[in-house]
């Protein structure tokens, strides 16, 4: 399994505050993804990265930004958290481009916005 860690694992914050979630991988995988998981919605792609400093939007990118300054780290920032962003956030990686590639998931971050 790819070594993927996410921090923090749990966070409670207040509406309007900025929040940054970190994904760290030790496998030198090129592609990294951020998803959110909500009951009844499955997983939805927020943003993804196809290399250092190369990112693109996913299905539900409004209210989120990302940065990737080095291969191993992919940061997700909620500029001003809202209650609708309460969710479980998963990071995933793939070693190469290609839609046939398996995605490897981190353990998730549970975020509660009050």
């Amino acid at each position: 399994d790819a070594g993927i860690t996410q921090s923090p694992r749990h966070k409670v914050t207040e509406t309007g505050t900025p929040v940054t979630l970190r994904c760290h991988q030790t496998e030198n995988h090129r592609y990294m993804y951020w998803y959110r998981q909500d009951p009844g919605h499955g997983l939805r792609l927020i943003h993804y990265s196809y290399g250092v400093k190369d990112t693109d939007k996913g299905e539900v990118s409004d209210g989120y930004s990302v940065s990737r300054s080095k291969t191993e780290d992919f940061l997700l920032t909620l500029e001003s958290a809202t209650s609708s962003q309460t969710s479980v956030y998963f990071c995933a990686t793939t070693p190469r481009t290609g839609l046939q590639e398996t995605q490897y998931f981190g353990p998730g971050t549970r975020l509660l916005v009050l």
Partner: protein
Amino acid sequence: AQSVTQLDSQVPVFEEAPVELRCNYSSSVSVYLFWYVQYPNQGLQLLLKYLSGSTLVKGINGFEAEFNKSQTSFHLRKPSVHISDTAEYFCAVSEIGGGSEKLVFGKGTKLTVNP
């Protein structure tokens, strides 16, 4: 754009019984198909995937799935389940040549195996 429908949100079964989790997809082009499993409080991990070739795909933990192009389905099966198979299962699809890195997930099926 592709979409995935998992027909059952919850499936309760007894231990050692067979199970089938249903998945249908919609796409205007050829697709790759995946099943992922999520155990409680964990991330997702790949069970199996269909890329090409034989339509019957075998995965980990005794699961298998059959790709049916005419029915646009990719149902997951296991002949005899264990308590440890209790988890949420996600079907996912990506379009070949779709010009996107997007893997689209279904909403998930919660499998509960009872003793």
